[in-house]
């Protein structure tokens, strides 16, 4: 392995290749054996695949050199008992203000990692293209990021307070169902998608570190049980925020139209 991948410690090209290979094999297999058609612009597509491969390798290496160690250390420090002023006698909920920085961190790291998430960038580009510009790529990404931020902050609160995960998730589903009934048709599928898209390369490692830190330091929490669930929050809340964003912009458009229509009445 070392002779095949001599620069693996500098750039994880082989590891990335391992992730990409099954996908490429499936694509080529079906293209050659089933579709039996040449790929249009083969050289362009190949160049694009190589760029994706190299780009991901650089991206992951950079994250692991710089942002992940610092972010994980930070999650550990912010959840350390000394920082949270946990003492065994006081009940942990009575001084929730000691958790202010923790919740702020949960919120901002959720927002920031989502903005940097490559798969969300991909979906936003596609949504913008397909809707002929009606869906703004930035607006969509910010809506998703706010959803993830709220989700992670609430998920952190859940671990601190020790309430059962499924209450939150099931309530979240009910809200999503109600919103679905009122949201503009064109956003529904995209909103559902954005939930799954957000939790990927950047978000998962940092959020997992936060969940692990919290559940091992808060008295009475079991890291094996309570550490999970943050990702679920991060995939549920963007569905609400994206539909909310579409509902608000539809409402705003109606308001503007009504304002425009009014002078004619008088």
């Amino acid at each position: 392995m070392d002779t095949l991948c001599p620069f693996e410690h500098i750039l994880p090209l082989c590891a990335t290749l391992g992730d990409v290979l099954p996908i490429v094999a499936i694509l080529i297999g079906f293209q050659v054996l089933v579709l039996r058609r040449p790929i249009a612009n083969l050289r362009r597509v190949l160049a694009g695949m190589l760029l994706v491969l190299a780009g991901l390798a650089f991206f992951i290496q950079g994250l692991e050199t710089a942002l992940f160690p610092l972010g994980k250390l930070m999650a550990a420090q912010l959840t350390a008992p000394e920082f949270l002023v946990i003492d065994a006698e006081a009940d942990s909920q009575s001084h929730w203000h000691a958790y202010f920085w923790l919740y702020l961190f949960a919120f901002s790291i959720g927002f920031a990692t989502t903005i940097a998430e490559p798969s969300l960038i991909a979906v936003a580009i596609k949504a913008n293209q397909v809707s002929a510009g009606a869906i703004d790529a930035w607006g969509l990404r910010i809506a998703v990021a706010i959803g993830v931020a709220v989700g992670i902050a609430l998920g952190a609160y859940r671990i601190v307070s020790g309430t059962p995960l499924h209450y939150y998730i099931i309530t979240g589903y009910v809200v999503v169902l109600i919103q679905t009934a009122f949201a503009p048709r064109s956003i529904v599928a995209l909103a559902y998608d954005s939930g799954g898209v957000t939790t990927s390369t950047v978000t998962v490692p940092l959020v997992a570190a936060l969940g692990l830190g919290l559940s091992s330091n808060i008295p009475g929490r079991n890291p094996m049980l309570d550490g999970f669930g943050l990702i679920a929050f991060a995939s549920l809340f963007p569905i609400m925020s994206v539909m909310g964003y579409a509902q608000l912009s539809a409402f705003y458009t109606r308001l503007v139209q009504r304002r425009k229509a009014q002078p004619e009445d008088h």
Partner: protein
Amino acid sequence: MRSGPAPLKTLLWQAIRALLDSARDLAPIILVIAFFQLVVLRAPVPDFADLLLGTFLVLIGLTLFVQGLKLGLFPIGEAMAWDFARKGSLFWLLAFAFSLGFGTTVAEPALIAVAAEAAEVAARGGMIDAADEAKADYAEGLRLTVALAVGLAIVIGVLRILRGWPIQYLIIGGYLGVVIMTAFAPAEIIGIAYDSGGVTTSTITVPLVTALGVGLASSIEGRNPVTDGFGLIAFASLTPMIFVMGYGILI
């Protein structure tokens, strides 16, 4: 009309714009980490050189990835969707959908990590034997279960696009499935099951599957690429929850 390669100046300008876009995407995460390190924790930045190098690599990587997306992943996903639509064989399209879902998930590093953790939880909870072999078997089974769930999800999602079923009924059905399974699944598995929905969709799968859905919806008459083209990822994050809880009940 000008033909031939674009002048160097234009290319350079495009490269700078792409880099600036990536810098804008990365600014929030750098600001958040800097703020908490310097203001809240009041700690010095360890290894400033490493930090700078890493940030530079992330910037280059994101820029290359986004360019590659537009050149390679999006076009091939859409082209294959059109080719399958032209071929008109439902069987092969669904076989492709299943392989794409199963194949991209089964080797997903995030899933491998989660499956190993889940085996640990199960062993501590006394659901399985604490021996390494039992844990490896459990993790392997879980991984296959999730991959199967994602493969099936893409198949259902593709069928929905072909038939034009409204997405919300399928999603509501899925949610009901999750709620019902939650009532019966062992407590240890619920957190893992809920999380497994989020970790399955990797950075390469998402653009590819999105392009496939949008391509299919555009190639079929009467389908709207916005309303019908999206939604494949949604299924791929919903079915693993149901399947993992099912796995927890059975094992």
